């Protein structure tokens, strides 16, 4: 089983390298991270934190949008594309279970995403550190950012498999992926914001809102990075909501999501008839 998963992962990795996905994703990450780092470097002096801390806080906001997007761009085609090309039926006649097929792809794609994140955000971090200083604390914050961004990407890679198995065609899968991204990353927060405004500081805002927020993997990612580092919280000005939650809430949410998303993607894939 392990040998089959690695064989699939290896082939998938070759594909990602050849179709320039890895290069493109790394390039996009790096470009945006560098731009944000320098655009956001102004408040260093006033807040009394080093530049890498500012950079990590800017890149946290960036990664909330970018990691899910890049993950979905890669994963939406995983099953719908194979079915469309007619390669799925042959693959399924080999003694590799559907869970193994998904796991092979998942390993390769999450690894690719991890590489792109580490190179993209890491290089921007290094530039920030060289330019405006760093501390052990801000270096830890950077590593945490890279690891959690990859985890966030893993959630959306697995969610992408689910909708790729549901969709009738790659085009439909792409549409679903765009919708999913919009809901998780944009609309969810807007909805919560609306609810908080309407509630006007009542029970919902104080007790329920933080939990609903942290249930979304994208927000859990944000909360984890902000709550874990005082400097980042200070630089982002977003510590408020995060403080009412216990420390474990965001990590548990972000660690559970990839698992749940993968299990449900496998369940949907099981029902697919090539």
């Amino acid at each position, binding site marked *: 089983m392990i*040998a089959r998963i690695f064989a699939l992962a290896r082939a998938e990795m070759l594909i990602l390298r050849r179709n320039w996905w890895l290069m493109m994703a790394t390039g996009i990450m790096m470009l945006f991270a560098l731009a944000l780092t320098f655009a956001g470097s102004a408040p260093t002096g006033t807040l009394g934190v080093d530049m890498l801390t500012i950079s990590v806080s800017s890149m946290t906001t960036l990664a909330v949008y970018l990691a899910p997007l890049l993950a979905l761009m890669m994963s939406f085609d995983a099953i719908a594309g194979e079915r469309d090309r007619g*390669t799925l039926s042959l693959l*399924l006649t080999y003694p590799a279970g559907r869970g193994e097929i998904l796991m092979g792809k998942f390993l390769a794609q999450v690894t690719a995403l991890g590489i792109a994140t580490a190179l993209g955000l890491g290089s921007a971090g290094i530039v920030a550190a060289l330019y405006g200083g760093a501390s052990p604390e801000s270096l830890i914050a950077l590593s945490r950012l890279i690891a959690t961004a990859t985890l966030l990407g893993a959630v959306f890679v697995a969610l992408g498999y689910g909708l790729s198995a549901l969709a009738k065609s790659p085009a439909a899968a792409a549409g679903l992926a765009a919708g999913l991204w919009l809901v998780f990353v944009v609309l969810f927060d807007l909805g919560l914001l609306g609810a908080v405004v309407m509630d006007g500081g009542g029970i919902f805002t104080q007790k329920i809102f933080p939990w609903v927020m942290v249930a979304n993997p994208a927000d859990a990612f944000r909360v984890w990075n902000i709550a874990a580092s005082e400097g980042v919280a200070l630089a982002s000005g977003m510590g408020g909501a995060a403080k009412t939650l216990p420390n474990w809430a965001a990590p548990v949410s972000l660690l559970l999501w990839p698992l749940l998303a993968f299990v449900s993607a496998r369940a949907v894939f099981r029902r697919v008839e090539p």
Partner: protein
Amino acid sequence: MMDNALIIRSADKFRGKTQVLTDVDLVVAPGERVALLGHNGAGKSTLIKMILGLTSIDGGDISIDGAKPGSNVARARTAFLPESVNFHPTLTGREQLTLFARLAGGDRPDIDALLDRVGLSEATNNRIATYSKGMRQRLGLAQVLLGQPKVALLDEPTSGLDPISRQDLYAIINELAAHGTAVLIASHALTEVEAQTDRIAILRKGIKVADDTLANLSHNAGLPTRMRILVQAGQADQIAKATGGERINGASVELYCDANQKMQELRRIAAMGDVVADIELTPPRLEDLYRHYSKEGQT
């Protein structure tokens, strides 16, 4: 019955409320080559998908060398060549075959020898995107040869192949069968398979209407051979009258004769001299066998 590699017993399949396969029985012994014939929509591909475990069986049962369809044992013992097979375009032939070999498990096969066997040794390290349809079909055949399958299912294996490739393909299929693999070839063209198979099963609207050797099928059906006689311009009417055939146009006449009277008829026509320019013989087509056996199936 246990010595049969593939046993299908009264298999049923529904798509929604329509029954696409009804009570289909089919057995293939090790080393036997059986053609599964039928038009598009007759249920060939559905039956193959059922054997592969890609779609559920709604009635009856299927055994692959004693294993259930879709089980790991069955999948390890089955090889499949899909209709107009396709692969990931960015992988090379060798990479794709290596992946399949690893998925199949067992001994590491000699990938280069396999690719050489199907005539792809020149293109092993080229991306599949650059392959022609015939080359993809050859690569598909190479993966069939991985790990000595007990049962090989080939769906329209000759589609897109030139005549020489077809010969190569059948040479490889015969070799497979000689090593004891039960081969089931689905096709909609009788001429593709008649000389290359031991037995022919005909599916019509999900019902098996015939299952015998081609010679027996043709004999039982008493199907005539079609002769088209090309004559010199303006002589068609005269020849049509003389042979008892039907005038098609000014230069050709068509007539039908039973298989056992073919030579006699040919001698008679040849004796007509220079007026006859050419004779074209068309043996019974699947269409004819079909029409015959589907009528029989109704009674």
